[in-house]
């Protein structure tokens, strides 16, 4: 029975299938809302699913100049990474499927794996757009990763634990968004950087470098990278909601809070112009990192 239960947790709920579908629905909501705000019609509700089915069914073209094992393996690693991260999160408002002291660090690292794989995937090919895109992806990774991580650790420091479940329990009793407002903003904007949403979509700026690191990908590989991004959207929203919006106690709580955050992301995406990569790095290191460090010191001082 235990094996069956584990398999169910990993493959169907809350990991695996559920989170994939959840991700597609949120992706649709994101695209649809941005479209409506931009005075467009936007995609139909099953569009992300249709895209995935089509891509998965298509032939995967492996370019001549790449290391084929890496080319095929990277999307799998990327998706596996974010799916693993999701297991430690209160997906759908249920308690995390797994947990151990320090799982927060593991989760945040697993969430970066997608970006890292994207960067390596781009650098693996010989395509100029991919190479420029990979450089930008990795440059951007180094700019938002540190502040995002610090923003995630802020509530953990206040809670005195690096286990997601315990931080959540602390967040449920304390208004973290009020005590650490800077951390909340940085975490949310860092999430946009992670997901390469506008204004941080320089790594895949279509008018400059086509699809960036993803240019050579088609079929299955591209589908897996997309799925990875959908799962990361869910994981990121859950993490921010759990830490800053008073924890996640039940399914209703989960959907209300994550969708509210998604709405904020939609608004920001609609309002912003794409930043150049140097502007992104400048923004994060000149303001983001310094502000979140300041927040950290304040948190530490108040705690002791």
């Amino acid at each position, binding site marked *: 029975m235990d094996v069956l239960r584990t398999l169910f947790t990993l493959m169907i709920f809350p990991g695996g299938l559920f989170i994939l579908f959840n991700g597609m629905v949120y992706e649709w909501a994101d695209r649809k809302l941005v479209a409506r705000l*931009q005075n467009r019609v936007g995609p139909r509700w099953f569009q992300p699913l249709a895209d995935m089915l089509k891509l998965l069914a298509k032939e995967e073209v492996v370019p001549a100049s790449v290391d084929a094992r890496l080319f095929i393996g990277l999307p799998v690693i990327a998706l596996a990474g974010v799916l693993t991260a999701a297991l430690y999160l209160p997906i759908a408002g249920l308690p995390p499927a797994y947990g151990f002291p320090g799982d927060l660090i593991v989760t945040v690292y697993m969430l970066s794996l997608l970006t890292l794989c994207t960067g390596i995937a781009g650098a693996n090919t010989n395509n*100029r*757009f991919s190479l*420029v895109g990979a450089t930008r992806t990795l440059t951007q990774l180094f700019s938002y990763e540190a502040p995002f991580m610090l923003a995630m650790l802020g509530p953990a420091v206040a809670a005195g634990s690096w286990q997601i479940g315990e931080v959540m329990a602390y967040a449920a009793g304390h208004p973290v968004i009020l005590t650490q407002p800077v951390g909340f903003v940085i975490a949310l904007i860092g999430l946009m950087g992670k997901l390469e949403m506008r*204004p941080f979509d320089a790594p895949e700026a279509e*008018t400059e*470098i086509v699809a960036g690191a993803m240019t050579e990908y088609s079929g299955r590989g591209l589908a897996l990278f997309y799925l990875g991004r959908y799962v990361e959207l869910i994981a990121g929203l859950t993490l921010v909601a759990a830490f800053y919006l008073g924890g996640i106690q039940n399914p209703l709580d989960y959907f209300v809070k994550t969708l509210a955050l998604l709405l904020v992301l939609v608004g920001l995406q609609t309002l912003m*112009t794409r930043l150049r990569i140097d502007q992104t790095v400048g923004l994060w290191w000149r303001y983001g990192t310094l502000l979140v460090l300041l927040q950290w010191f304040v948190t530490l001082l108040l705690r002791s």
Partner: protein
Amino acid sequence: MSTDGNLSGKRFIVPIGPQHPALKEPGHFSFTVDGEIVTDASVRLGYAHRGIEKATESRNWTQSLYLLERICGICSHVHALAYCLGVEKLAGVEVPPRAQAIRVLVAELERIHSHFLWLGVAAHEAGFDTLFMYTWRDRETVMDILEALTGNRVNYSANVLGGVKFDVTPEIGDTIRRGLEFLEGRTHHYLEVVTTDQVFLQRTRGVGVMSLEQAETLGVVGPTARASGMIRDIRVEAPYAAYADYPVQPVLAEAGDLEARFIVRIKELFESYRIIRQILDTLPVGELQTRMPRRVKAGETVSRVEAPRGELFYFIKSNGTDNPERVKVRTPTLCNMASVLVTAVGHQLADMPMILAGIDPCFSCNDRTVIVADADGAAYTWEQIRHHGIAFYQGK
């Protein structure tokens, strides 16, 4: 200009085009980059050459008008206008003032639709899709006006040799006024957006700066020149059609950067609104067409009009028959293209689409023949290449 096999060498060239999402028409740009900084740029044009100039020689004067109107899908009216003005000058025909005023009216409506289109495209290149979608939605207003006025959204076919095809009734005048009122409000909003949105300004202010000296050396035209403080406006310098009766105030900016080009184009919209209203208020009474001879007297002439993108130049030569001997077209994009290559150097790769969009390029209009040369480098004449072609295919 090699674009391959340079990965291990010092030069890393990013090819933009001939097929690329940033380009709506085929063109090829090679940007040599050092990291993200562009150190060299080159362009290759001619992918969309259609041989229209040559085709006019086997059509009569009236048929050529319809052909030339199809050079550009955006500024179709100015092509027909430049051609008509030239041919009418050759034939010594006086066009009634009402027709000339209607020609200017359509030309200004076309400028509005072209500038709105450009605003959207430029915003899209910068990654500001919201502005893109909104401007293109509002552009529908002027497209609807053009359709109501002429029956067509794109190739309005307003001109005939010796006049215009349709009249502006008071009812249609009211439709235009209502549309302009809406557009004017929106234009004020867009002017505010491009001059105050901090994130957007980061992408336009101080980017792609072209000084007045550079602009004069490179011979740029139209809004691109005016954004560098150079008065280059045929409507002002050599008024044609009815522009002498409806004088234009040239819109100038000093900065020469992308922001200045946004400001110049948007402020030109206000000027267009003003002229259109003035024409509607004081439309001369009279005929719409005069009689045009089928054959045009032998001679040659030059005709220039201000297209939305800058000076449009036509050279027309007649040999006294009912076909043109030669029609030569030079579109503003060709004059402005060199400025892209000069201003690109030193900027980031991310700025390239915007700098390119800054001149409002129109590729298929500016594409012209390639020089076909034999192995010795001697160019073929038209007759020689025709014989070569026949011999080549007979040998197959």
